[in-house]
């Protein structure tokens, strides 16, 4: 039972990271109807930016951990958001009127550009960092000596995710930008007629998605202690699976889907086999799309001729 609870904690932490990435997929799909294939690589870039900022801050003599974390978070979010903006500006905006497959192919190209850019710029080897947040709590210790641990890193990941989600939900539900975004999601032409700057709203959607992916990248770095240039691909597909599972276009759905995928992956690794954990995640994507194409919280897509 203790083993189960430990895996539950691990799964929820992993799921928070997937959920943060999945929000970017679901937002972009909701507003422009395309799969932003490069989003996983944006997450990877976020991890790299966090790593480099962290390294610089430590080397100039900053030692107070909360300040380091806050600065790293802000820098990583800002720079990665700029990456998101640039990608949209270069690769997707010129294709808005093109045929349907064009943005998808362009996104695949962009994904190659980003992952190989960081390979060329930062080298192909895995980049490890020493643990930044140490310590934790032992929640329960069984007679057999197995302890359920809740580390401080895990607390930081979950708390950051919850806080950011609260801010983000407020942004979408209460602000002018959120209203614009939801308007563009329903009908871009009508929104434009009513004075919404569609281009700017779409750009902002990419910026926010990238900023959340940057947070996920930083959390990944803190939790696993390493980044590499190839991590965006698999994480991206899993987060996309999460978005589909939750119902693409639905923001709470993305988070729910992320948690579900995190839990499934963790339990699969714990009880079945570690080697096939990615196979399990990809199979879920296929199964969900066949049996539950609208996801858990999604709206059915009405086909108009």
């Amino acid at each position, binding site marked *: 039972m203790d083993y189960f609870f430990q895996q539950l904690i691990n799964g929820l932490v992993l799921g928070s990271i997937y959920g943060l990435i999945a929000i970017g997929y679901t937002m972009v799909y909701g507003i422009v109807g395309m799969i932003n294939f490069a989003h996983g690589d944006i997450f990877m870039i976020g991890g790299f930016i966090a790593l480099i900022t962290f390294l610089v801050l430590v080397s100039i003599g900053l030692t107070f951990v909360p300040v380091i974390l806050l600065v790293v978070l802000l820098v990583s979010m800002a720079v990665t958001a700029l990456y998101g903006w640039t990608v949209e500006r270069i690769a997707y905006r010129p294709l808005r009127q093109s045929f349907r497959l064009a943005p998808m192919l362009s996104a695949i*190209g962009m994904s190659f550009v980003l992952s190989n850019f960081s390979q060329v710029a930062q080298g192909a080897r895995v980049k490890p960092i020493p643990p930044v947040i140490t310590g934790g709590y032992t929640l329960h210790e069984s007679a057999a000596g197995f302890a359920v641990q809740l580390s401080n890193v895990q607390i930081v990941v979950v708390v950051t995710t919850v806080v950011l989600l609260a801010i983000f939900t407020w942004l979408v539900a209460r602000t002018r930008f959120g209203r614009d975004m939801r308007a563009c999601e329903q009908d871009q032409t009508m929104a434009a007629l009513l004075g919404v700057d569609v281009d700017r709203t779409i750009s902002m959607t990419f910026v926010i998605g990238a900023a959340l992916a940057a947070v996920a990248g930083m959390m990944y770095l803190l939790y696993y202690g390493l980044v590499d240039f190839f991590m965006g691909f698999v994480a991206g597909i899993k987060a996309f699976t999460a978005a*589909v599972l939750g119902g693409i276009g639905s923001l709470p759905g993305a988070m729910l889907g992320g948690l579900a995928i995190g839990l499934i992956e963790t339990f699969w690794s714990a009880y079945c086999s570690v080697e096939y954990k990615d196979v399990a995640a990809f199979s879920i994507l296929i199964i969900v799309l066949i049996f539950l194409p609208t996801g858990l919280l999604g709206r059915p897509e009405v086909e108009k001729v």
Partner: protein
Amino acid sequence: MALPVADRSTAKTPSTFGFIFKKAALSALVALALFSLMIGIRTEAGPSGQLIYWTRFGDLAAIVAAVFVGSILVELLRQWLGPAGTRTIVPPRITEGLSVASRFLAPALLVFALLVPVIFYNQRYLLDLGILVLTYVMLGWGLNVVVGLAGLLDLGYVAFYAVGAYSYALLAQYGLPLPLLSTAYPFITVEHLQLGPWAFWVLLPVSGLLAALWGVLLGFPVLRLRGDYLAIVTLAFGEIIRLVILNWQDLTGGPNGISGIPRPTLFGIPLNPGPNGLAGMLGIPFSPTHRLVFLFYLILALALLTNWVAIRLRRLPIGRAWEAMREDEVACRALGINITTTKLSAFATGAMFGGFAGAFFATRQGFISPESFTFQESALVLAIVVLGGMGSQLGVALAALTMIGGFELFRGLEQYRMLVFGGVMVLLMIWRPRGLVGHRAPSVFLHRERTTISSDMVKEGRG
């Protein structure tokens, strides 16, 4: 069509130098923010595992300057060429000239391909490259059936390539299992038939059929999916196949791959230096080039077979159904076309050719490992099809030649290769989303006159 284009060109006032400069400065500023951390600072794991870093501000400055200059050049070029969209109207004389040229291009290319082993007999490197190009031509033509004709975006095509390669390798290694009926207890016994020198010729169709079977297996679940979703599911499928191959170590050897795969024979006559080899039988001195020449003609024949089948299928009802489905699936269904068989047959046909190519790849290399079947391969084949204009056979062949040739040219810049590849894909989508050979010849004509329709006018289905 002409009027709005003219309107657009007059509506936009020519920009001043100040505007260009401002834009370039802005681009440079964005580039500075993007690259200052990623390029300005280089991290690496040090000897003791500790992460170290050093600065590269020179590179950073160079890149920012390049962005600044590049931005000015792009803007000037844009003003010089006029606003986007004005060039879609090509003078009819040029279109005619192009179509005449392309009519002679295909036979000329074919004759050239047939003569390559004669001309370059002594250049093993070029022969090898030719074999590689033809393999991709074949893969491109196979995928073209799925993407170009049926309009189903398949991002996991490499899975069928892998199935073909591993089918051949494993069946050649363990022998072809033949179920034998018997009267004693298990009633069915499996006997492994060792094929010896005939392995390739027996297993080539078997590999193709197995790949086609996998194509149908993939096709069933994705029947209801469209466009992006279909793309992602096929991608997941391709990754699943690769991961299973990677992890099923007992069968596939995992990351170590399979080596010692039997080389092809000229219908049973091995191409080796022994007395039973081809050279020994003909009484000529043995040379390893013989095998290369043989492989070249083999893949050429396989590729031409793919091309021929694809062209013939287009004229059959099933091919018409594919193209109809590509243009509009709903209308297609309303007209009584069975979408299930149409989609499945497209997947199966494309997968079968992928399987043939995979078996050829295995016999050519003599060694296969999961590394050869990554998503990058799928993307490369897809890029060839897209660059070739999705549906044009000649275009795909030219695109394969350009892509693989380009890859070879930049072999020295190994690490920048995929970076450039991705960039080219993005630029291609912006500049010519319909590929370089942007025509699609309609298969059905109402009148006798044959015309080619510029692909800009063809509406893409949701496929």
